[in-house]
């Protein structure tokens, strides 16, 4: 599904922040991406959702070589990848419902065709009673769940989550992890970037550990 071969990345003329990364993300797989702060987790996630291109090496996403990918093909490819940002990136002037429905709306779909799905998904992530709430009045955990719902509504083949439990208390973190596991059980590949050892210990999964720009994989 996703393949990295000897991938390196540097910003401008600086030193390489990621070096010789080689790994694969298989369909229906579940992995944690971890490492100390500044190790390059967010940069690697940006490579994974096509926001950055490597300075060397090969990245193949859904069997397409990223280096030769025309810009016009990026949106369609990006829609197959769900992303949960660390800072949520919800639009404050849109309701929870509208935020979650955004990936479908940008496809030009009519609200009537997706309304029930969005409501049901919001109920599933525990936001059934916050459908019309605006993000500024949501708690950190609620925002996190809204961001997850937005990443899921387009039925992505892979979900990338950047520190999804960074802003929530342990019980909610556990609940969110169960949500990701359930999602994976239903067929979506999941990559969770986290430095929360406690979270990783709750679920036995593959670990991609970044340290000083290099990656070690623990199956």
């Amino acid at each position, binding site marked *: 599904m996703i393949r990295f071969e000897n991938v390196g990345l540097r910003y401008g003329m600086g030193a390489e922040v990621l070096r010789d990364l080689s790994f694969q993300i298989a369909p229906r797989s579940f992995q944690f991406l971890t490492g100390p702060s500044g190790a390059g987790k967010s940069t690697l996630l940006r490579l994974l*959702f096509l*926001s950055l291109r490597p300075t060397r090496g090969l990245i193949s996403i859904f069997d397409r070589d990223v280096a030769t990918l025309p*810009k016009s093909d*990026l*949106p*369609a490819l*990006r*829609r197959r990848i769900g*992303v949960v*940002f660390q800072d949520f*990136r*919800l*639009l404050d*002037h*849109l*309701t929870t419902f*509208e935020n979650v*429905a*955004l*990936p479908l*709306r*940008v*496809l*030009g779909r009519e*609200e*009537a*065709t*997706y*309304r*029930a*799905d969005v*409501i*049901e*998904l919001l*109920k*599933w992530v525990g936001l059934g009673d916050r459908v*019309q709430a605006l993000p500024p009045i949501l708690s950190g955990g609620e925002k996190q769940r809204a961001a997850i719902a*937005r990443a*899921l*509504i*387009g*039925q992505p083949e892979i979900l990338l989550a950047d520190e999804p439990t960074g802003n929530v208390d342990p019980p909610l973190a556990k609940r969110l992890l*169960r949500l990701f596991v*359930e*999602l994976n*059980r*239903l067929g*979506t590949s999941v990559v969770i970037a986290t430095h929360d050892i406690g979270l990783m210990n709750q679920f036995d999964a593959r670990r991609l550990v970044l340290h000083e720009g290099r990656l070690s994989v623990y199956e």
Partner: protein
Amino acid sequence: MSETSPLKALAAGPARRQGPRPTPPGPIVPAGSIAGRSLTIVVAIMSFLACLTLGAVTLVRDASLDWQSDIVREITIQVRPIDGVDTDAEAQKATNLAASTPGVASARPLSSWENAQLLEPWLGSGLDMSDLPIPRLIVVELANPDAVDLTQLSTRLTQEVKGASLDDHRSWTDRLKAMANATVIIGFSILALVFVATVLSVVFATRGAMSSNRDIVSVLHYVGAEAGFIAREFQRHFLILGLKGGLWGAAGATLMFLVLSFLFGRSIATPEGDQVSALFGRFAIGPTGYVGALGIAILIALMTAITSRLTVFRHLASIE
């Protein structure tokens, strides 16, 4: 998690069920932001100034055309008194000659009273003009200045009327034309400068307003929106902002001209009013001015929309 998970339902395709009555979705680009309001105000002010300048230039150009056509439409024949020649008879002959020339509307000798009026500032009142060798003046009104062959008329007058000469005001007209043209050129130069200032301030204000929307562009981009979709959303939003501001400015300028036109129309009988109307006509900017004002408003709105579109593409290029 139960088997009725919504993810399974999603995988089954679009829902057949309908939820509660949907409320219309909010605009992707927020309608009323502080940056948006500031942009509308900047656009309105610049549009007002541009329309005002356009109106003023139109006014000066129309007035200068009026002055020129008024002066070109009138020529004067002068019959100098010569000893042993009946000046009045020669003047009558010149009048008849001028009146019979094609393109001439009327020819009329000034009466001795009118002559006295013309000379009064220099000679004072109460003089007996008959004792003085005053030339007779004939005012000739032209129906169509282009149809009159002034050279031929001048030659015929010299040959057939003793002491006659034709003054077609050409030297005056040429000077006035030069002055009026210079005024119009200066006006258009100012208009061009105001346009450039308008374009720059609208572009910068739009970019400023767009910077507060960068997060929205990024989010739309990351949820898989096509660049064209994002650009269209912003373009539409900024076109409406620009149109609103542009039309407010144009309406303000139009209203100002209407009020001025009304006020000067009322004071036309006063010496000050006459002076202004002598310079600027009825102070009306005419259809060109009004259509121009509307054109400026639309142009500014388009500029706002295009700038927002370009800013979206530039921002997308920077985050890819």
